[in-house]
């Protein structure tokens, strides 16, 4: 009965956006201090808008700044990281007063997190306190977010936690009294999702939420996320190195490389007509399981060190399209015509017209 919910055509969400974004990021820079007293830009001048109910996938190799960007959006950066410039604006709903996230003080920030924005981490094991039961941890979250002048009602809290667990298809009587280690990986991840949605946040950052899970468990989580998004209308930023998962869950995709978003566009534009050689390379590196055997190609070399970025386009040393021009100056972001009507498609590559994406199928056996 719910078998079409996942396969719902994305065209319903690709209408021209006139509403206001839930999250608006402009020229965001995240720096880390290094041992030698210098700084590196882990995220470099990133801009994007996230609209209500939209799912944006951030893809790229490890070390490209995806996780740092995710942490930066919620201001959860480790001590050595900070945001020297840029802006993050949040709006609970269109028309609501915008909140400048970078100006929130620590008290406001604590209230903002969970209630407005939440993060689901990769290792659900380490996201929980190992010596407190799931029920108590969920209650703590609710308690910390009781509105001014109201009192926390324990019974109501347990009820709410239980309802949310039921929603992610877990048995509250089994889970609430359990310690994190007593749950399987898939159950823990579901619990974490339940907890992140407890206060009905408007956007969710999910950092590789299915990486350590088995294929069928992963499928269950992916289906659940699609379902919950449909039902509750939150927006999400989905961080993954697996492009196949992005294809499954996202309606917009942003490719990151060396701290920058080098291409962003609608799901179909990115997967069927990528214009950055790096995006095209990433897609061609993923083996499909249906159909004949395609010719896969890895991207030669490895990502550059952020402390020592090449001059010009940082992908140029690994790029087959690179020319002396690429090595001379950083390519500007260009807006190009999108396949999907009303969607924008931006790319940072001066050779985007030449990038011709195709998958070669080789006949073997």
């Amino acid at each position, binding site marked *: 009965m719910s078998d079409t919910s996942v396969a719902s055509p994305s065209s319903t969400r690709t209408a021209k956006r006139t509403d206001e974004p839930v999250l608006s990021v402009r020229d965001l820079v995240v720096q880390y201090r290094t041992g030698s007293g210098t700084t590196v830009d882990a995220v470099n001048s990133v801009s994007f808008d996230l609209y209500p109910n939209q799912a944006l996938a951030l893809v790229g190799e490890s070390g490209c700044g995806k996780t740092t960007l995710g942490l930066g959006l919620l201001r959860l950066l480790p001590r050595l990281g900070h945001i020297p410039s840029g802006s993050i604006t949040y709006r609970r709903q269109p028309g609501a007063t915008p909140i400048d996230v970078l100006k929130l003080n620590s008290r406001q920030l604590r209230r903002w997190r969970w209630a407005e924005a939440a993060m689901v981490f990769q290792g659900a094991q380490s996201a929980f306190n190992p010596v407190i039961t799931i029920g108590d941890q969920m209650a703590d979250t609710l308690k910390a977010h009781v509105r001014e002048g109201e009192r926390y009602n324990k019974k109501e809290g347990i009820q709410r936690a239980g309802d949310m667990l039921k929603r992610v298809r877990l048995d509250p009587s089994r889970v609430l009294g359990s310690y994190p280690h007593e749950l399987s990986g898939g159950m823990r991840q579901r619990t974490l999702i339940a907890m992140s949605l407890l206060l009905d946040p408007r956007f969710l950052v999910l950092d590789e939420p299915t990486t350590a899970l088995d294929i*069928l468990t992963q499928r269950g989580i992916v289906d659940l996320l699609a379902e919950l998004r449909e039902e509750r209308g939150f927006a999400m930023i989905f961080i993954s190195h697996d492009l196949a998962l992005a*294809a*499954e869950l996202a309606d917009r995709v942003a490719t990151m490389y060396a701290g920058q978003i080098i291409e962003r566009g609608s799901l179909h534009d990115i997967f069927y007509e990528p214009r950055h050689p790096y995006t095209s390379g990433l897609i061609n590196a993923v083996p499909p399981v249906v159909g004949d055997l395609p010719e896969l190609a*890895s991207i030669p070399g490895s990502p550059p060190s952020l402390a020592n970025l090449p001059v010009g386009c940082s992908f140029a040393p690994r790029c087959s399209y690179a020319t002396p021009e690429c090595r001379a100056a950083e390519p500007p972001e260009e807006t190009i015509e999108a396949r999907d009507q009303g969607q924008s498609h931006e790319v940072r590559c001066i050779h985007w017209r030449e990038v011709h994406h195709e998958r070669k199928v080789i006949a073997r056996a």
Partner: protein
Amino acid sequence: MLESGDTPLLRMTHVDQTFKTKKGDVPAVQDVNFEVGPGQVLCLVGESGCGKTTSARMAGGLLKPTGGEVAYLGKNIWDMDSKEFIDYRRSVQYVHQDPYASLNPIRSVAATLTAPLLKHGLAKNRHEAWEQAAELCRRVDLTPPEAYLSKFPHQLSGGQRQRVAVARALTLNPKLIIADESTSMLDVSIRVGMLKMLGKLRDELNVGFLFITHDLAIAKYFGWSGKTAVMYLGKVVEIGPTPEVINNPQHPYTRALLNAVPEPDPDLTRTKLPNGGLRSSEIPNLRELPTGCTFHPRCPLFEAGCDKVVPILAEIGPNREVACHVTGRDTRSQTDSPTRELAG
């Protein structure tokens, strides 16, 4: 290349592994049969806890089976004298999942690679060992070797470490490599390069592979010219040539796994069934296995009787075996009496 003739490198016959625990026996592997020849690939796929790593550990001689026989070149490895066993240990090498844990952090790449060469007398002196280590680095595409030999694991990326782990496995000229999820921790962009490199070893050095993965897309890509065995709760439920298992799966579990794999194609991937088409996503406990076919509580093709009779892995075509009452019967009757009308 090998004098083995028809004898496969590795043959597992009716292999069982039951772990004894305080809470009762855990039948991790039951009645597993397969073989790998020189230059051949056998992929073992399945979810965690299905017994694929336990099977691999038994194949690698790291674990003694509680039943059945693991034979190398026709000889049971646990009946070998020490000389034969050393030869087997040299010829069958293991590449682990996590290159962060499998390399000694205080040994340089050169030390890691030269130690086995010197120990087994394959190099006469340090200089010769160094030369051979450099050659191994070239084999696994760590070029130029001089740039890597003096490095320590922490100075290498995950992909480079895994290449060092493969180079180490190659030091003793193995005939069979057991790769246990060897590419699953690597980034997508690096994974393909790694698989291509392993494929080259198979083609050029005629090395056989027992390739363990939970990712069917990887099994398909690496094992296309070989065979794939799908395991569920300690048993092989389907085995056959990879293209057939992947493109024409017969066991409902194989079908569910294939249905659960996301595709790098937005339109295609959204046609997949929720939950892989299964009735339940719960994996049963190995201590309390369901009766009859252990897959029946999750199986979409469940029929009366499936929960009573254990299906046997039976041949349904050339080189193809499936353990399922429903699809097994259908495909068999198809070949027996082509006139009969088929359900589904």
